[in-house]
């Protein structure tokens, strides 16, 4: 059993996967290629990394209100993150997963952690997310 971190549910659901973590905020439009799921903002520290299937951890969103549409498209083409972990989640980020639940019947759970817990997430670690019940288990 790994380390259990308590968080708050934003979008319910469960998922697991490898963590891709950044301390930089992300705009999905202008930040993630909707065809490949790769980070395409050359100023971002995760430039060229793929979000597909990952537990994507970044503190909060920024930028374009088209971010929601890019998340919906990533779901449509099978390149969406398996879950999103934030410190704070804004509506633009949550809209993509909520619409994809109704429109494509697929969940992208979102959970928030406080800043002290958030910094424990490291790229390459394996994590199990239960957003519905508000916790993350980090494998050692």
């Amino acid at each position, binding site marked *: 059993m790994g380390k259990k971190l308590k968080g708050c549910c*934003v*979008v319910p659901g469960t998922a697991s996967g490898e963590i891709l973590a950044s301390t930089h*905020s992300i*705009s999905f*439009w*202008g*930040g993630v*290629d*909707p065809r490949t799921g790769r980070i*395409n*903002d*050359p*100023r971002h520290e995760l430039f060229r990394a793929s979000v597909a299937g990952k537990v994507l951890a970044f503190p*909060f*969103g*920024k*930028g*374009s*209100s*088209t*971010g*929601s*549409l*890019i998340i*919906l*498209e990533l*779901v*449509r083409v099978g390149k969406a993150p398996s879950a999103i972990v934030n410190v*704070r989640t*804004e*509506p*633009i980020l*949550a*809209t*993509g997963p*909520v*619409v994809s*639940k*109704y*429109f494509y019947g697929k969940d992208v759970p979102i959970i928030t952690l406080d800043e002290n817990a958030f910094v424990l997430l490291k790229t390459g670690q394996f994590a199990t997310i239960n957003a519905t019940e508000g916790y993350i288990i980090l494998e050692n």
Partner: protein
Amino acid sequence: MHLTDEEKLILDGNKGEAARLAMSILADLGELFGAESMMPVSQVHIDATLYMVDAGLEFAEKLARLGARVNVPTSLNPSAIDLVRWKDMKVPPAIFPKHQRLAEAYLKMQATPTWTCAPYQQGIIPRFGEQIAWGESNAIAFANSVIGARTNRYADLMDICAAIVGKVPKFGLHLTRNRVAKVLIELEGFTSSMFQNDAIYPLLGYLVGEIAGDQVAAVSGIPSLVTFDNLKGFFAGAASSGAVGLCHLIGITPEAQTQEMCFHGGRPKKTVQVTPEMIADSERGLQTGKSGNIDWITTGCPHYSPAEFMRLAQLMNGKKVNSSVAFWVYTSRSVYAWMQGSGILGQLDDAGVTVFTDGCPLQYPRESWNFRAAMTDSTKFANYCYSQTGLPAAFGSLEDCVDTAVSGKFHRRRSPWAKS
């Protein structure tokens, strides 16, 4: 979240499947963000009008097919392309039908074909304090901050849901308590001559967005002679580098006539000083290109206003765009028609400037043009250019853009904030 009987009936499908889907999405988001109830909005601006990916087309067409109609006055963001002169823009005929289908889906829902990312310049404009639901990050920041209307940062897909129902969950920037500034950003060491260079505003906005992140900030030290278009450039930059829905400019924006007013009598949780050196650094960070091979100069991100057209015509007076570069300006149909009437459009056409309507420079049909590098006076465009078009971008003032366009060689004046 408490729902009225009428709202529950919509959720149960009594007003049709489209309204049920829209209400389900709004109610879910309301629950997730802790809203206590729904509230009416007087107008909506839809962001999701640029055809880029099929998910957006599938969603809009499904709603239209289900018979959805907007319930409040609703304006539309740009298409990706010029819907009228798409052949001049060399939009591949194979892809044009998808742009057209997306446009038709929103028109079928009876939205107004404004096709502009600067809805605050013309059309369905809110007043101070009006509760609205706008998409398009630059327009949201402008509406909240400069006009004092109230909207959250509404996302694509949620925006059309709000238009169909005519309501949104009551949370975030709709509520007075969430409009209080938390962060104070003080300009230090700026001289009045720096503010005579219009390039300072989009650069300042870009830097302020990075500092503010997702917090409501207040900026002190911007001179009160700032123009409408200066503010447009500032907020477009800020909303691209941060999650900026509202940013008060002390002494300028209506909820910040004084510092006390925008902090609601409280104190800043954090104070950050911004210096000319920081502007110079963020300007350097925005240059993604080598400056040698610029062949596409583009302005109108956000869409050009009549005042901006007038200034460009003055700068281009007696000059011609060099044959080695393209100079494109993007604007709305309505401003285009006014400029046609005023003769300014003819003057720019004679000078070799191309003006497109309806579209977005970040979505131009790149396969038809093979440009090598872009130059712009917009920090929003410079920020997103590489990821959206694959082109490196240089940022400069409009004067620098004009000089580069005319000479065909990259030209930049020394910025007054440049380090010695």
